[in-house]
């Protein structure tokens, strides 16, 4: 009994942190309709800043805490003003989630650069001596945690309901157009909500830091836990955020205590799914409905990239020759290996691009399917000597089943949830990859995976692997190009921008989303298997959530919605760190920064940029420029 109470208290403390994160999510969501995944990053940033102020500058802990919150607010102000707020008017709504994932990567990468990868903890604010009440010990830090949650809830309530700023914030969330007419600066209020949410996040990180150690990549876990909390409670509802946070914290602690810490995140995801099936809008209904028959305001779309058939043949031919002869020109060794990785990741990206670039569904858990494919094939080969090709098929089958289950559960819900379910799924696979060490070899990875082989033919040298990968890519491109240039591709693109209008034409929206999701899982799984056979080794971080984010970045900077586009992104982000070793620590940071930059300034990606540049040159050099409606008809 005492034990249960003890665990319950732990759950409440953890729950307070989640509740604070969830409050931040709800605040930003109310004003902008966007789930801001950077939230967890601010948490870690605040805590580590406070740690530095305290440990290195010798500031007293409370001053260090205040300093941490203040500096986090400044960072949030800069990121908000330069990325988040401009993004709201330039980036398609569905992509905002990816943009905030980019911000999270940027923060994570910056933290890694500044503080390294080791864990940090703050000293308890009121000493180490725990309070003992009725035989139950409670760390004094617990009072700080509960106290800060209660005071933030009260402060937020006061701000929103008793001040002019609060009235302006609420006006923005209820009707931005009317708010603007009333002279309220909507971008200003958006920025304010973003900064306030970051400060709440920083507070959460700082008060929890004495009882949990934090490191650079804890941020994504915090983001997802905060999101799960807010989704359980009802996105946009403040009481819901608190209730959801506490519920999740309790569930998590009891699961850790009585089941296993390995499965606590899996159970959290399970709790979320159960609640969403039972009550799709969460425990607390926000009760805001939108007219469905009126189109969402069409955000500025990226330009249209279509390549003429003749040009496609010529360039395709040249590309093919280049691809086949490339190994001959390379100085050898490491370049060829990283070319192979480029190709393997491109296979995963073909799938992701169909899901996101064509069908407009965001997935932040693609590496989860890579992990399933890689570990299944690797483990079967290591443990049972199963032929690689059968291992690949087995992995694909499992991925397919997971994808279909995940999609069926989330598909009926609003679009946002599929994206977040994929992130949660990825994190769940992460924890299983570490936890199921009989199969995966745990954190140190699965070793001794053989090279790929079919019958007697083995692909142990990088050169052979290169041609194997090239072959697989060519077949995949052939198949996908066939589907995408036909009815399937058109249906996906219609769904991408206007599901209501697509359904009115008889396009079965859920079925096409499911198909796109299944295809993306198959490609990711295949890529994961190849990855394992190529390295003869697989470790959790090779196919972890960071990898999922990296895939998204590669797709966006390469050119989403263009079949070949992501190849450029994959090439750039894989080859650069190989060629310049020193760059590799900047990788996560660069991923985030590049993602934000491309979303804001070059949404059609490198591929689209190249096509456009080429057109301009061609028009300058030769033929009379063709005047079209594009130049005349625009108002």
């Amino acid at each position, binding site marked *: 009994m005492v034990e249960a109470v003890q665990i319950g208290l732990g759950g409440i403390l953890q729950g307070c942190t989640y509740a604070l994160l969830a409050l931040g999510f709800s605040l930003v969501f109310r004003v902008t309709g966007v789930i801001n995944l950077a939230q967890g990053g601010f948490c870690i940033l605040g805590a580590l800043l406070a740690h530095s102020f305290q440990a290195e500058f010798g500031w007293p802990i409370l001053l260090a805490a205040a300093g941490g919150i203040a500096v986090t607010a400044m960072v949030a102000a800069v990121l908000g003003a330069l990325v988040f707020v401009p993004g709201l008017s330039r980036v398609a709504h569905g992509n905002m989630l990816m943009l905030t994932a980019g911000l999270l990567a940027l923060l994570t990468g910056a933290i890694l650069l500044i503080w390294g990868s080791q864990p940090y903890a703050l000293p308890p604010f009121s000493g180490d001596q725990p309070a003992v009440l009725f035989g139950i010990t409670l760390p004094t830090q617990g009072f700080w945690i509960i106290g800060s949650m209660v005071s933030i809830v009260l402060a937020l309530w006061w701000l929103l309901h008793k001040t002019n700023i609060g009235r302006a914030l609420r006006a923005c969330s209820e009707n931005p157009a009317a708010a603007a007419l009333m002279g309220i600066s909507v971008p200003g209020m958006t920025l304010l909500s973003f900064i306030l949410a970051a400060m709440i996040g920083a507070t959460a990180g700082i008060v929890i830091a004495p009882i949990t150690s934090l490191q650079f990549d804890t941020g994504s876990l915090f983001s997802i836990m905060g999101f799960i909390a807010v989704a359980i409670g009802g996105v946009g509802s403040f009481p819901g955020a608190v209730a959801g946070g506490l519920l999740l914290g309790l569930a998590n602690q009891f699961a850790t205590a009585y089941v296993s810490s390995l499965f606590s995140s899996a159970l959290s995801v399970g709790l979320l799914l159960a609640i969403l099936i039972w009550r799709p809008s969460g425990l607390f209904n926000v009760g805001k409905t939108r007219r*469905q*028959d*009126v*189109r969402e305001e*069409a955000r500025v*779309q*990226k*330009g*249209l990239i*279509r390549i003429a058939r003749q040009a496609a043949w010529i360039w395709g031919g040249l590309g093919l020759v280049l691809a086949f002869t490339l190994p001959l020109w390379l100085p050898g060794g490491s370049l060829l290996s990283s070319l192979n990785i480029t190709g393997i990741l491109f296979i995963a990206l073909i799938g992701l691009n169909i899901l996101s670039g064509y069908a407009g569904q965001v997935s932040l858990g693609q590496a989860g399917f890579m992990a399933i494919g890689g570990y299944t094939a690797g483990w079967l080969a290591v443990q049972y000597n199963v032929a690689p090709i059968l291992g690949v098929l087995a992995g694909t089958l499992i991925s397919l089943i997971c994808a279909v289950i995940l999609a069926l559960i989330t598909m009926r819900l609003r679009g946002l949830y599929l994206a977040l379910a994929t992130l949660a799924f990825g994190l769940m696979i992460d924890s299983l990859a570490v936890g199921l060490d009989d199969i995966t070899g745990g954190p140190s990875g699965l070793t001794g995976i053989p090279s790929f082989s079919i019958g007697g033919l083995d692909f142990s040298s990088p050169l052979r692997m290169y041609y194997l990968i090239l072959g697989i890519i060519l077949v995949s491109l*052939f*198949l*996908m190009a*066939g*589907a995408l*240039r*036909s*009815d*399937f591709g*058109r*249906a996906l*693109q*219609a769904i*991408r*921008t*206007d599901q*209501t*209008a*697509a*359904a*009115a*034409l*008889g*396009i*079965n*929206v859920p079925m096409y989303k499911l*198909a796109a999701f299944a295809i993306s899982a198959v490609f990711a799984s295949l890529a994961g298997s190849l990855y394992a056979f190529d390295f003869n080794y697989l470790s959790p971080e090779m196919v972890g959530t960071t990898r999922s984010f990296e895939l998204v970045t590669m797709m966006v900077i390469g050119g989403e*919605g263009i079949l070949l586009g992501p190849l450029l992104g994959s090439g750039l982000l894989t080859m650069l760190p190989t060629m310049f070793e020193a760059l590799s620590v900047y990788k996560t940071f660069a991923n985030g920064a590049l993602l934000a930059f491309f979303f804001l300034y070059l949404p059609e990606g490198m591929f689209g940029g190249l096509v456009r540049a080429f057109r301009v040159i061609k028009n300058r050099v030769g033929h009379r420029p063709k005047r*079209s*409606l*594009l130049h005349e*008809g*625009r*108002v």
Partner: protein
Amino acid sequence: MMQNTQAVLLEVKNLTKNFGGLQAINDVSFVVPEGKLIALIGPNGAGKTTVFNVISNLFPASSGDVLLAGKSLVGLSPVQIASLGLIRTFQSARVFPGMTVLENVMVGRHRMMRSNLFDQMFWLPRNRRAEADIYARAGALLDIVGLQQFRDSHAIDLPMGAQKMLEVIRAVVACPKILLLDEPAAGLNDAETADLAGLLRAICDSGITIMLVEHNMPLVMGIADEVLVMETGRLIMSGKPHIVQRDPRVIAAYLGMEG
């Protein structure tokens, strides 16, 4: 009654829709005979769009029934309703961004496509024939409405009038039994409106039944076989265009709208 001599394609019975306390449509009944062009007119906010939304089941009716060729549409999803041959357009032109004008027309053919994903992935002749067929149909329709020269432009770069036309032919290429058009002439200039009138009449003469929501009285009076008039959620009268036009209640409703 004259309708008895013709097959009824669409029948709406005692349809009611409440939004919270607001009664957007109130006990509306009418029939659309096969092969006719029926117009639904009424001032803004009369509930015309809501009638379309309920028929296509974008949201369910509060009560009442809708029958398409004798089969009830209640409880069917928008996709199922579309596959039965009821295709609608939207008041705000909803062309698909990110696709060319030609692709926008071709996507309309979706419900008639018989080639499956397998055929498409393997570039099988069956799919290539189907694609060639849509390509030809779409091209022909673009010719008719004079958008051929913009076929490879980004659809949302077209002027509003052209987008409206595009939406109409995208619906036509789906081979509907009945076409529900929500204010297709909004945003069109006079010349374009005249073109649209010709197009609608031609579509109807080709055997596609049309139900048209429209504000533009000359357009309606010129082409409709019968006119239904709504005001604040109720159907206030119906009849031949020239009769409806002279009815004092209609004139009052429209004057009310102007004022």
